[in-house]
C-alpha cells in the first residue's frame, strides 16, 4: 500500500516535473472528455426535445386501440367497452385522453383537402398534448359549443377566420357519407405547416353525433406523463387488458421513425466516442513511451534495487492512470460547467434547422446532464488511460536492467 503511494508520489512528481508535456497530454485528453460529456448532454437534450415534441403534438407516451387497429384505416375502429380500458388507465395514475378519430374531407372547391378529424375531451386532451397552448385566435373546443379548432395554415389556405364556417364530409359508422357545417371556434399554430394543415378538432360528443356512434364511442386513448418507462408502462397496461380486444403500443412502436432517428444519433455518437478514446489512448501511450525511454536508467536502477517486473508495470501504469485521472477531472469539470450553462440558457436551433415535427414543442435545445453519462465517460477515460499505459509499461518491465544501467 505504502509502495503504491510511493509510486503515486513518483508519478505525480514526474508529471509536475515535465510541466509542458504533461499539460499538453492532460489538455488533449481533458478536451476529449469535455467534448464527450457535453455532446452527450446535448444529445440527451435533443432526444428529450424530440420526444417531447412528438409526444405532445399528438402521440402521447402510449396509446390504446381496438385489437387489429392500424393507422390510416378508413373505417372507424371503436374500442370495445372503453370504460374497461379507462378503468385500467386510471389505476396507472397517468393522465389520459380519449379520442374519436376519423378521416374527413374539407369541402372548399378546388382547395378541398383531407384532414384527420379528432374528437377530443376538452378537459382531458390538454393533459396529453400541447395544442391548447398554441391558440392564435378564438377558443379551444369546449363541451358547450360544437365549434371547430383548425390550424393556421389551413385557415390561411382556405382564407377563413374565427366565426366563419367550414363544411366537412365524413363517413358515418354505418358507412354512409354525410356533410356537416361547423363554425370555426379557434385557430392554433404549432409552426409545423404539414400538421397545422391536416389536423382539426371538435369536442368528442360532436364527432360521435356526426358519425352516429354509441354515446361512449372511443377509437383511441392516449396516455400522457413522462416519456421515461414508456415501454414498461405499455407492457403493464397490456397485461391488464385482454389481447383479443385491445392493443397497447408505446410511442416507440407508434413512431418508429422517431426511435430510428435517435438510434442513428446514438450510433453516430458511439463512433465519436470511439474516435475520441482512440485519440486519448494514443496521446497517453505516446507520452508514456517517451517517459519509459527517458527514464531508462532510472527503471534499471529500480530493477537493480529489487523491483519486480510487475512492480515496474505498476509504476508506469500508475503514472498513465494519474494522467487520465487528472484529465478526466478537468474535462468533467469544464463539461459540467458548460452543460449546466446550456441547460439553463439553451441553444436556439431555429437558426440551424427548418421547422420539423421534432422541434414542434420549442426550438430551444437544453443540455441534459445525467450523472450516469458523466460517470461512464470518466470510467471509460481512466480505463483507456490504464490500457494505453499498459503497453509502454510492459515494455519497461521487459527492459534488460544491465543495458539500462550501462546506458549513459
Amino acid at each position, binding site marked *: 500500500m*505504502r*509502495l503504491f503511494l*510511493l509510486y503515486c*508520489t*513518483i508519478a505525480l*512528481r*514526474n508529471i509536475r*516535473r515535465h510541466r509542458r508535456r504533461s499539460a499538453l497530454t492532460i489538455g488533449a485528453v481533458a478536451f476529449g472528455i469535455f467534448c464527450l460529456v457535453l455532446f452527450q448532454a446535448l444529445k440527451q437534450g435533443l432526444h428529450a426535445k424530440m420526444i417531447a415534441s412528438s409526444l405532445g403534438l399528438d402521440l402521447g407516451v402510449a396509446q390504446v386501440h381496438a385489437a387489429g387497429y392500424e393507422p390510416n384505416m378508413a373505417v372507424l375502429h371503436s374500442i370495445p367497452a372503453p370504460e374497461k380500458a379507462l378503468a385500467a388507465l386510471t389505476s396507472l395514475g397517468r393522465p389520459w385522453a380519449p379520442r374519436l378519430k376519423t378521416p374527413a374531407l374539407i369541402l372548399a372547391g378546388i382547395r378541398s383537402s383531407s384532414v384527420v378529424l379528432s374528437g377530443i375531451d376538452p378537459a382531458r386532451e390538454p393533459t396529453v398534448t400541447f395544442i391548447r397552448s398554441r391558440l392564435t385566435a378564438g377558443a379551444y373546443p369546449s363541451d358547450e359549443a360544437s365549434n371547430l379548432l383548425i390550424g393556421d395554415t389551413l385557415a390561411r389556405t382556405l382564407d377563413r377566420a374565427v366565426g366563419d364556417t367550414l363544411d366537412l364530409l365524413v363517413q358515418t359508422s354505418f358507412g354512409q357519407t354525410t356533410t356537416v357545417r361547423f363554425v370555426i371556434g379557434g385557430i392554433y399554430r404549432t409552426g409545423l405547416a404539414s400538421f397545422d394543415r391536416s389536423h382539426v378538432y371538435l369536442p368528442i360528443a360532436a364527432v360521435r353525433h356526426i358519425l352516429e356512434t354509441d354515446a361512449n364511442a372511443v377509437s383511441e386513448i392516449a396516455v400522457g406523463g413522462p416519456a421515461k418507462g414508456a415501454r414498461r408502462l405499455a407492457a403493464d397496461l397490456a397485461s391488464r387488458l385482454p389481447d383479443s380486444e385491445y392493443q397497447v403500443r408505446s410511442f416507440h412502436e407508434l413512431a418508429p421513425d422517431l426511435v430510428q432517428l435517435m438510434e442513428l444519433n446514438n450510433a453516430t455518437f458511439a463512433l465519436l466516442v470511439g474516435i475520441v478514446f482512440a485519440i486519448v489512448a494514443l496521446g497517453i501511450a505516446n507520452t508514456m513511451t517517451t517517459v519509459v525511454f527517458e527514464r531508462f*536508467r*532510472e527503471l*534499471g*536502477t*529500480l*530493477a*537493480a*534495487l*529489487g*523491483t*519486480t*517486473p*510487475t*512492480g515496474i508495470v505498476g509504476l508506469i501504469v500508475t503514472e498513465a492512470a494519474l494522467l487520465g485521472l487528472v484529465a478526466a477531472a478537468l474535462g468533467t469539470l469544464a463539461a459540467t460547467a458548460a452543460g449546466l450553462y446550456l441547460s439553463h440558457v439553451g441553444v436556439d436551433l431555429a437558426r440551424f434547422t427548418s421547422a420539423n415535427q421534432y422541434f414542434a414543442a420549442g426550438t430551444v435545445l437544453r443540455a441534459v446532464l445525467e450523472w450516469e453519462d458523466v460517470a461512464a465517460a470518466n470510467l471509460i477515460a481512466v480505463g483507456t488511460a490504464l490500457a494505453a499505459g499498459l503497453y509502454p509499461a510492459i515494455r519497461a518491465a521487459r527492459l534488460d*536492467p*544491465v543495458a539500462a*544501467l*550501462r546506458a*549513459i
Partner: protein
Amino acid sequence: MNKPDTPPTKTIVLERVCKVYRSGASQVRALDDFSCTIEAGEFTCLAGPSGSGKSTLLHLIGGLDVPTSGTVRVAGRATTHLDRTARALFRREVVGFVFQTFNLIPVLTVAENVEYPLLLAGLSAGERRRRIAKVLADVGLADLADRPATALSSGQQQRVAIARAIAPRPPVILADEPTANLDSTTGQAIIDLFVAINRQQSTTFLFSSHDPRIIARANRVLWLEDGRLRPSQA
C-alpha cells in the same frame, strides 16, 4: 527459495563462469572460465583495466544477469535458473548496489530514496523510520533527509546511494567503480565509509576500481584481465 548449499562463510562462490556477449557475428568473452570464492565479511576490490570484465562480474554476482555457463552462488542461492521476478526478489534480499553514477531517483527526497528498498522489503513504518535515521546518520547526512536527492553534491549523492544500499541490511554490497565520478578526497571518504560499515556490520564488500589509491585500500584484490584472473593469482 533454494536452501543454503554452501557453508555460510563462503558468501560468494563462482564456478567456471563464462559470459559471452554476442552482437551479430562477433562474440566477446567478457568472462572466461572464471572461478573464485569470497568469504563473508571480506573487503575485496576487483581491479583491472577498462573492458576486463569487472562490471560483467558484478552484474552476475548481483543477479542482474545470468552466466552463459558455470554457476554463481551468493549467500547460498544460485541465480542461474531464476526467472526475472525471482532474480528481482534475490536482489532485494541479498545484495545492495552502489553505482558509479549514484543513480538516485531524482524526484524523491534523500529519505524517500533510502525508504524505497525498505518498502520493497515490506518493513513497517516505524521500522523504516528507525532504519532511515540510522543509516543517514551512519553516512553523515542526517540533516539532509528531506532535501531533493538531486540538490546534493556528488559526494553526498553517493553517500545517499550507500545509505540506500545498506538500509535493508543485505549480506553483500556490490559497488561498480563507486569513486570514478568523484574527486580523490571524496573518493577516499567513500572508501572510509565502506571500511567503517564493513567493520561494524561485517557486511561483505566487493567493489571495482582501476584507481591504484582506491585499490590499495582493499584487504584483498582480485586482478582481472580479459575476463580472467591475472596468471599470478590464478
